[in-house]
């Protein structure tokens, strides 16, 4: 598939998830149980991107020793939990990462 087709299909599926509930489906079809499960979608899907990018290196190997990303991510997580700030989480993580690779 060409890059353009890939972009179009990804755009289409993104749009349809936004559009379908607004325009096509009656809200009665959505009970509380389904809403409750859907509220867990971010918790279920974002770690699937976070964990491998931290623990697995470019060659596809599991990397725990000498991996500054782990400590930086843990620091960012605690800053995030206490500050509840998206921006503080991102910047504390980047700052700790740079500190670990350039200074330590």
């Amino acid at each position, binding site marked *: 598939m060409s890059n353009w*087709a890939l972009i179009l299909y990804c755009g289409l599926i993104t749009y349809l998830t936004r559009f379908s509930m607004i325009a096509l489906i009656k809200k009665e079809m959505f009970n509380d149980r389904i809403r409750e499960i859907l509220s867990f979608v971010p918790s279920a899907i974002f770690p*699937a991107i976070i*964990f491998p990018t931290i623990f697995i290196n470019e060659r596809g190997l599991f990397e725990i020793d000498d991996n500054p990303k782990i400590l930086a991510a843990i620091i960012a997580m605690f800053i995030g*939990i206490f500050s*509840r700030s998206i921006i503080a989480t991102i910047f504390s993580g980047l700052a700790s990462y740079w500190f670990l690779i350039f200074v330590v």
Partner: protein
Amino acid sequence: MKSNLKVFLKGIIDVSPLMIPVIPFGLIFGVLAIDVGFTPIETMAMSLIIFGGASQIVLLQLFSGGASSLVIISSVGAVNSRHLLYGAVVSEHLSDLKFIWKIIISYFLIDQAFAISNEYLKKNKDHNRYFHLVGGGATCWVIWQSTTFLGIILGAAIPEKLGLSFAVPLTFLALLVNDFRKFINVIVIIISGLVATFGYNYIPFKAYVIVAALAGLFTAMILTRKNKKA
């Protein structure tokens, strides 16, 4: 009743604080897209056509890992399933609108606009209250397109040594800050993360994102059901 413009402007003002993290997110997307081999025009088209940060980053992540198109598209669909929830929640406020407005508003139904407009829509009953959602969405649209553009231009100037790609997991981590305080969410996060990490090399077709997400949702289903019975 307030004028359409006033409601639109209120949407812009309310969403503004949430735009601060969108700026580095857009820059990072622009830089990374060029880095993994998309042309500047394709990169810009992604932001215009998809207009969803998480979707676009997942696309890049899997594309650079050599995943097939089918896996990329279904992973993007899985990431987007949270929009079904947003749509279901706001649809009751939009039910009287003309179909054309529903088509337009759907394009702007993004995390940040949903977060602020959901509150506004609940409190206001004016006919034109949906302009709030359009104001928030349009603000994010402008920021997202301009930071993507800046990222494309700056890309070459940012040294690879800075490890900006590390900002990707950090951005997703930041979207979970409120979930770390809830016990069931933490379990779901750990299950999904472990399945993705250990399945990375073993789950075929790079489908680890989908498999891990399903494992996480399944865990959530079991844990919330037990909760109710107790």
